[in-house]
């Protein structure tokens, strides 16, 4: 599974406006809605589910990244949004550090295997120091896309 397929261009937010966790999640769900990955009427429900998942344990698994996620029955295809924050966001992470890069993953409910595969790909890449560093430094949609492509082609070390 390739990350470039998951993340559509209009769902990349290189400079997040929000600085609080809940608002960041809203901003990224909105980005997914405007990219056509989710119907607008689902927006509030999706935000609520993502936050509900966060309450069951933070998806900020440390080292400045977080992967909030949600499965929903009305979602037809899997999609992800990427948001970057310069100042860092308090995600109540495992290592208590602020989060600079957020992947928000949206999946259909009836295909949990695909959801898990996507989580694995995202986790594997975010575990690489180089990927995390370049992602945090990326300043434009283009730079993020280039980075995703390089990662998909396994051009990144670490």
């Amino acid at each position, binding site marked *: 599974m390739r990350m470039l397929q998951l993340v559509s261009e209009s769902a990349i937010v290189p400079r997040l406006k929000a600085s609080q966790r809940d608002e960041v999640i809203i901003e990224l769900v909105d980005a997914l809605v405007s990219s056509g990955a989710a119907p607008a009427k689902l927006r509030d429900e999706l935000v609520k589910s993502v936050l509900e998942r966060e309450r069951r344990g933070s998806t900020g698994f440390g080292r400045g990244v977080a992967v909030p996620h949600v499965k929903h029955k009305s979602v037809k295809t899997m999609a992800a949004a990427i948001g970057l924050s310069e100042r860092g966001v308090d995600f109540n992470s*495992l290592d208590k550090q602020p989060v600079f890069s957020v992947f928000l993953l949206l999946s259909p409910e009836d295909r*949990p295997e695909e959801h898990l595969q996507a989580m*694995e790909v995202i986790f594997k890449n975010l575990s690489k120091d180089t990927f995390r560093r370049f992602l945090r430094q990326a300043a434009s949609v283009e730079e993020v896309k280039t980075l995703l492509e390089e990662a998909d082609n396994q051009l990144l070390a670490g």
Partner: protein
Amino acid sequence: MQSTATLAMSEPNATAVLLVVFGLLLAFSVLFTRTLDRLGVPVVLLFLVLGMLGGSEGIGGLVFDNYELAFRLGTVALVLILFDGGLNTSLASIKRSAGPSGLLATVGVAGTAGVMALIARGLGLSWSEALLIGAIVSSTDAAAVFAVLRGGSLRVKEKVRSTLEVESCVNDPMAVILTVAVVEFVRLSNAGGTASGSGGHVWQLLLDVPVQLLMGTLVGLAVGWVARWLLARTQFSTGGLYPVVTLASAFVAFGAATLVFGSGFLAVFVVGVVLGSGPLPYRTGLTRVHDAIAWMSQVSMFLMLGLLVFPSRLIPVAWVGLTLGLGLALLARPLVVALCLLPFRWKAREIGYVSWVGIRGAVPIILATFPVMAHLPDGERIFHIVFFVVVISALVPGASIVPLTRRLGLDEPETPTPAAALEMHSLRPMGGEIHSYHIQQTVAACHAPISQIRFPDGAAAILVVRGDRVMAARGSTVLAPGDHVYVFCRPGDEPQIGLLFGRPTGT
């Protein structure tokens, strides 16, 4: 004074009868806890009432009016309870709540004592009585607070919970210091002491508080580190000896701290925290033993304090006690908490909650034996007034805690306990742990067969508990909402597993 109808029996029968009555009281106490938990009444109250029933004026006929013995046994019980409290309090939650709970435990206690003394004086008590009662009821009680916040079906939000818990563990020294000082003061002034002597006393008191807190912390840290080192280095022949070592450390800490003018209660709590937050051999076994010891202490201590009360002497002080109890719950505590928490900019409902859950318990009752032991006039009257205040302060907020927590939205989603639990017992720290995860609809692993979940290399799901069934975690097992999954993993694997399963149960 009533003449006590002693059991005219010789040993071993006297001991036999004593054990039968006490054993039955213990058993009844525990049997009733479920019912009371549902009603939200702190279970410790039940123990008190049963103690009264077992006493010389009740149906049990046990005669007990030895205040010094009660003080000793009560102190030992509190040591055991505070140690268990420390074991279960994480360093992180202490750090988070250090500011508010520290202020509440020092300035707050003094403030409460002052306001209570004023209320008592307003009710027509003498200044010495008013000051004594104020000092005695000034601290919240660790045993009661823990019982309410952890014992029942309730899970209160971390911020308020840790503040209340840490406050209740570290505010006893302040109350002890105040009480001892006021008892001394009253005794001196009764003996015709001069005002200048008491003036010097106040200054000494102001110095005494930081010294007590500092020495208590230092001794606690020292004993804690030595005990931790000892437990890590030495291998004992049987697991049963480990709790003996931890118990010993609690006793030594209390005694040593008290001898060097430190707060023994604080030292015990610190030892518990040091041991609980570090690597601890045989952890599950140890915490279970201390949990049981703490409950046993709790039940016995309140039963004993109940035995010490003579219901006939409660009636004359009923009005004063009731008014003081309500004054504490509705006026003194809320006022002091609101002022103490002002600099921390808490939400109004959080401040309200902390004010309301300032439950008093065994500490005031044990402190109330001080005036009796010092042979102050009206010592026993004060003891019975304090008893009343404690019961009111536990009953009124206690009964409303469950609905109030839900109403204010301060409860956390509750994780039901699985029908079966899997634990790893090891005498040494091993390179892996078993965590349990409660599967929710929202987590990634839900509805997926286990074979599709890519675990880190050293990790695997081993057992699934679904309702009343236990199942082997096979590749084809599909995880359903409500399942409890036990996962074996190495320490570094937790982030990845947490991402797929959510937060491990109990963290």
